[in-house]
């Protein structure tokens, strides 16, 4: 199970990579593996705002659909259009090409509440 050291994580298996005041969000290797073949992704419109923990999209595998939750509150400033035609990129490269949205966090304090790599590793191993 790949868990990059330089990312932050939620208990719900999303990751966040901050660069300046923008962050990229996706789902973890553990999550894509559990889902199996991803066949459809629903992403929000650019400009939409969500609170931390709110569902911003859906990832659909053959067997089921799962909500994906915002790691922190913020506004969506970009979505990964490639996922519309090739959702399986999430399975292949969940931390790289499989990124889902880019956000501008509205309350940077919330970032401190996320798990670091070792915290997430513990969660996954004990879960």
């Amino acid at each position, binding site marked *: 199970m790949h868990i990059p050291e330089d990312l932050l994580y939620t208990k*719900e*298996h*999303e990751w966040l990579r901050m660069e300046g005041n923008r962050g990229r969000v996706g*789902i973890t290797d*553990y*999550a894509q593996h*559990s*889902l*199996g*073949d991803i*066949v*459809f992704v*629903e992403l929000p419109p650019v400009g939409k705002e969500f609170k931390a923990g709110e569902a911003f999209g*859906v*990832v*659909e595998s*053959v*067997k*089921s*659909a*799962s*909500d*994906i*939750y915002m790691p922190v509150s913020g506004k969506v400033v970009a979505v990964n259009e490639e996922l519309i035609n090739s*959702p399986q990129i999430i399975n292949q490269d969940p931390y790289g090409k499989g990124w889902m949205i880019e956000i501008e966090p509205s309350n940077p304090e919330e970032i401190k509440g996320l798990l670091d790599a070792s915290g997430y590793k513990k969660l996954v191993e004990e*879960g």
Partner: protein
Amino acid sequence: MEGLNKGEGGKKTPLYEEHILAGGRIVDFAGWLLPVQYTSIVEEHLSVRQNAGLFDVSHMGEIEVEGPDAFRLIQQLITHDASLATGNKVIYSPMCYKDGGTVDDILVYRLREDKFLLVVNAANTAKDLEWIQKNAQEKGYEVKVRDISASTLQLALQGPKAEAILQPLTDYNLQKLGFYRWANAKVAEVPCLISRTGYTGEDGFELYFDPSEGRKIWRELLTRGKDEGLRPCGLGARDTLRLEAALPLYGHELSPEITPLEAGLDRFVRLEKGDFNGRDALKQQKEAGLRRRLIGLQMMDKAIPRQGFPIYQQGERIGHITSGSFAPFLNCTIALGLVDSPYVKVGEEVKVSIRGREYRAKVVPLPFYQRSRRSSS
């Protein structure tokens, strides 16, 4: 992300350890612990269409009906004509309640003049057993009804290469075994009922034998079939395969509220054979004209409609989805739905509501997928 729970409880088939060894991801299905997939549903599905796949389907139920009145009981229970199960013919038939609703859909084997084997859905085994016994008692039929599921292991070997893989392991000349025919034979020296039936829309076999030999046959098949591209396949692929072939799944396309006529199974309902459970209700339904019917949909996006999701046309709700999934071989999303008459025509567009949004779908003819009958395997 929601829903990453692990399954608990449930019965294990004799091949449970084999599934773990093969990397199977175990889930609970109808109270059984079985693999939903080993590597990937899409890969396993394609394997069956292109080469072959091996499924542990031991969760299915097997019920024996034996005695002087066995035929009369079966003929009363099923909608199809049991007298067609002659020689080595297998028949598929719905079983109905008095009101025409469906108890289950089953396979019927006439092993001897007075002995039948019924193969029933896993989730319905206890219910079916009770139903069969109740019917036997009410009419005072002289029969013994036995649930032999625990002493029967069932495997399904499906795909164009199935015959090539199985033939070296059996003494029976499979070229002589036609579709929906069965034979008593030996597989890897083990006595086995070989049935040329399946739930995938491909050529293939269902094998019934004693559980003590399960591991041996499972491993033999996988070893022998390796060069032909045989892989173990789980419940996930089983469902996507049957949906592409538009085969009904009890609880979705058939239920106590859905009759076989509504599910498009008219050719398995033989009103002319004489009386049977549900005959009057089905005859009435046929004569009055069906008020709703199963149709096929191809989604114009890849969003997957699931059971119960509403179907609309021109703003009006006309029915609901019974099953939906991504179809790996067809590379699109398909669904079956029950819609009210007047029915939508093939080629027309409808809308399906998925998670609060409406997605477009086209009505397509069934089945979605049909194998070429001129297969040279």
